[in-house]
């Protein structure tokens, strides 16, 4: 297990400039970046699960610092509302953030099962949820959450356990129906082949009757168990005087089935049990694929829960002074006084009390620079308190918060979005209506000409028109494309995403976290007369070496570990002071670093100054660094003919800089979520089909409103919930290839549909004339379907450019 000593063994964070900590794994000392990672690595080793490090394909997540935050869940009243009673214990559904590869599933499942008191545990990778059942007497929810957190993941208890139950029942029901249809189809097909061979080469009458009866026995449960949803759907549609795709499907199924039963019992005509079961099977497959895609996109309500912390610290006044108690966020009330420690997410909307605080609002506004909020100013839930403890008087909780309004905006945008699936459904419905009309016409004509041949001819039309190839045409292509994209690190979350992706003409990128990787880097240094850039960077790196603050990490990456600082002192919200090579230095805000003026006009919040006893040495200019692949991806997209632009909530200067770096000409800055949505709609009105790529909570409504939306793998849960596609690998590099696959898929779908329609149209008149014997119809139908499937598999072939 060769790990370059430059990065953390557990989370792969660069180690440059950190005090290196070692963890013992498999009898070796391996370097890790922080005590949290050491604890996680050693815990995994202790549990005998160190194989995780050999099998994983993506780095782990760094564990959160405070371990006692789960204590509030030990409260039985809290646990009662979040869990439910099972026959042998208590169960909870836990949403897990930080699942990066399949080895994570394995690790969590095994670790939970080794926790004493846990009876059952399973992790569903597709939905990112774990179902845990435990013995109430031996452990509690708090300990289970702490166990998951100790491994480096972030657990969130899902309150809507009932929804999860419903989804599981639906999944299992579909799976059973699919299994029965598949097994039944294989059986009936073998009998059908014998019967067709018998028709061609002569067959004993007893055997023929026997095979027919057996076919009927197998086809009956397939139709009435596996096909029940279609029959039910058709009945409901007719009862509501509507016409859905289920109606012609159900009529064709019932007609073919009852005619076959009649022929079987009277030993006359021909049977079509094979067509019935095959049709039911393919329709079941289609339904299953659709359901799986639907379940994969996690619920928005869950996403909202993930944005806010699980617990909060409430300040209670007692006779002998104030005391801090940890409570679950759901139990906070308006008027409560909360304590938000440095580095914690604000759990509710409120007003700052007492002193000021520096707040990172980037998840809400996209603005990367922290904002200073004075006492009495409003602070929104979901924002991050950067560096000093904050006292917050709660003004709004839960559904009344700003962030909940954002979720509402998203829900509305999604509802207003054009749905392609419906259009495709309508087309197939029209086709089937035409088929039914044609069949009825044929029946009437034959009844008039020769009543004895009316029924076989009508059925032949229905079988020849059986849109098996047509229904396979898109289905197999979409399934193959989904698999091909998954292999390239793109998760398709909605059934119609591929179709939409193929239509894209313009791509709008968010800035922070999408074109940039969210990391801050030092881009410049304006020295005073006494300053020297290289030396200043080294001093800054030494002073900031031990800090976890994102800005501090920027200095550490920039300056390396040349100098070492002693006697380091932190001033919350101000800066850091320390001794390097015998000289006392300060780094931080203007007011903190002695002496002012002299240096440039960097934006107020971004200016980080370095100074010593005699005055300022210079000012650092900070900016977000673009992703390594951003420029190449943009160039590739433009070469392929896509329009590219940036929509950002950040300042014009920051956006312009990044646009130049990435080679993008059009960009918008200082845009709110509503502005971005407006821009996307305006583009839509101009006839452009827009793909939106984003990662933040502020992007979620835009993602919901765009023609097709793509979220980054490390982006916020809300963004992912509203996205059609998720770039799992958290890299833009997969995007051009995804677009190519989608376009190829679209072309192949078109070929398939042309072929299927051509075949059906050609076969129908012949069948209507009564010239097609059943075996020929079946051979034709099967080979047509096989042709379509083989053609569809071409989607997965590695791309050869465009």
């Amino acid at each position: 297990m060769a790990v370059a000593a430059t990065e953390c063994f557990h989370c792969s964070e660069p180690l440059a400039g950190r005090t290196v900590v070692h963890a013992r794994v498999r009898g070796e000392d391996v370097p890790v970046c922080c005590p949290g990672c050491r604890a996680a690595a050693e815990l995994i080793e202790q549990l005998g699960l160190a194989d995780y490090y050999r099998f994983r394909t993506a780095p782990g997540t760094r564990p959160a610092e405070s371990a006692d935050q789960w204590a509030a869940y030990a409260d039985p009243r809290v646990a009662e509302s979040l869990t439910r009673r099972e026959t042998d214990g208590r169960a909870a559904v836990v949403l897990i953030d930080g699942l990066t590869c399949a080895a994570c599933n394995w690790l969590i499942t095994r670790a939970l099962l080794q926790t004493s008191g846990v009876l059952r545990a399973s992790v569903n990778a597709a939905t990112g949820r774990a179902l845990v059942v435990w013995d109430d007497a031996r452990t509690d929810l708090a300990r289970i959450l702490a166990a998951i957190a100790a491994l480096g993941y972030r657990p969130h208890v899902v309150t809507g356990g009932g929804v999860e139950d419903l989804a599981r029942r639906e999944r299992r029901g579909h799976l059973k129906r699919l299994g029965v249809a598949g097994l039944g189809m294989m059986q009936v097909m073998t009998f059908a082949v014998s019967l067709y061979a018998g028709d061609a080469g002569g067959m004993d009458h007893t055997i023929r009757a026997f095979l027919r009866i057996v076919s009927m026995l197998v086809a009956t449960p397939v139709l009435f168990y596996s096909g029940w949803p279609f029959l039910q759907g058709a009945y409901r549609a007719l009862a509501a005087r509507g016409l859905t795709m289920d109606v012609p499907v159900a009529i064709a199924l019932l007609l073919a089935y009852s005619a076959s039963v009649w022929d079987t019992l009277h030993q006359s005509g021909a049977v079509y049990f094979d067509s019935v079961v095959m049709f039911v099977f393919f329709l079941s497959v289609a339904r299953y694929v659709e359901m799986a895609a639907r379940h994969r996109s996690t619920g928005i309500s869950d996403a909202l829960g993930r944005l806010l912390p699980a617990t909060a610290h409430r300040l209670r006044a007692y006779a002998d002074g104030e005391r801090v108690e940890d409570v679950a966020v759901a139990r906070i009330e308006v008027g409560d006084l909360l304590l938000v420690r440095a580095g914690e997410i604000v759990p509710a909307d409120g007003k700052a009390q007492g002193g000021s605080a520096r707040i990172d609002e980037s998840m809400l506004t996209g603005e990367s620079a922290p904002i200073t909020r004075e006492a009495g100013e409003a602070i929104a839930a979901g924002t991050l308190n950067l560096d000093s403890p904050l006292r917050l008087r709660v003004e709004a909780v839960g559904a009344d918060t700003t962030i909940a309004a954002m979720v509402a905006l998203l829900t509305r945008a999604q509802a207003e979005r054009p749905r392609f699936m419906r259009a495709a459904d309508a087309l197939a419905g029209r086709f089937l209506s035409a088929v039914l009309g044609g069949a009825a016409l044929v029946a009437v004509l034959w009844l008039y000409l020769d009543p004895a041949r009316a029924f076989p001819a009508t059925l032949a039309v229905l079988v020849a028109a059986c849109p098996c190839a047509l229904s396979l045409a898109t289905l197999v292509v979409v399934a193959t494309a989904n698999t091909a994209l998954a292999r390239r690190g793109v998760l398709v979350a909605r059934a119609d995403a591929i179709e939409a992706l193929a239509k894209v003409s313009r791509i709008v990128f968010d800035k922070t976290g999408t074109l940039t990787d969210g990391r801050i880097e030092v881009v410049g240094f304006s020295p005073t007369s006494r300053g020297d850039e290289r030396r200043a960077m080294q001093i800054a790196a030494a002073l900031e070496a031990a800090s976890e603050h994102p800005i501090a990490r920027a200095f550490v990456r920039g300056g390396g570990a040349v100098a070492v600082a002693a006697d380091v002192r932190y001033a919350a919200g101000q800066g850091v002071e320390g001794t390097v090579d015998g000289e006392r230095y300060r780094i931080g805000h203007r007011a903190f670093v002695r002496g002012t003026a002299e240096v440039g006009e960097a934006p107020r919040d971004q200016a980080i100054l370095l100074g010593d006893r005699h005055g300022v040495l210079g000012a650092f200019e900070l900016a977000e660094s673009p992703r390594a692949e951003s420029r190449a991806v943009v160039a590739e997209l433009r070469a392929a003919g896509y329009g590219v632009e940036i929509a950002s909530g950040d300042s014009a200067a920051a956006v312009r800089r990044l646009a130049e770096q990435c080679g993008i000409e059009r960009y918008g800055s200082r845009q709110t979520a509503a502005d971005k949505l407006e821009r996307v709609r305006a583009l839509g009105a101009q006839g452009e089909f827009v793909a939106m790529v984003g990662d933040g909570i502020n992007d979620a409504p835009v993602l919901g409103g765009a023609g097709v939306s793509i979220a980054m793998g490390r982006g916020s849960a809300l963004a992912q919930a509203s996205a059609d596609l998720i770039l799992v690998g958290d890299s833009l590099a997969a995007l051009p290839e995804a677009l190519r696959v989608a376009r190829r898929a679209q072309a192949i779908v078109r070929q398939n549909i042309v072929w299927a329609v051509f075949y059906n149209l050609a076969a129908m008149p012949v069948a209507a004339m009564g010239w097609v014997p059943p075996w020929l119809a079946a051979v034709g139908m099967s080979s047509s379907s096989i042709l379509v499937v083989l053609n569809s598999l071409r989607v997965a072939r590695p791309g050869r450019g465009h």
Partner: protein
Amino acid sequence: MGIILVLIPISLVLIGFACWAFFWAVGSGQFEDLDAQAWDILAEDEPAVDFERPTRGGRRC
């Protein structure tokens, strides 16, 4: 050809059994997580350790 009058009913019984087994597998949650179990076979067998208890400690001596 008479033999198929015997063989086919037997195959039907087997199909019934296969359906029952499949239902049982679905019902007992075997299709819920298709990933984690696959990793189990790659892991080296080690006796399970209680999560709450510290490990057996160093084995180097």
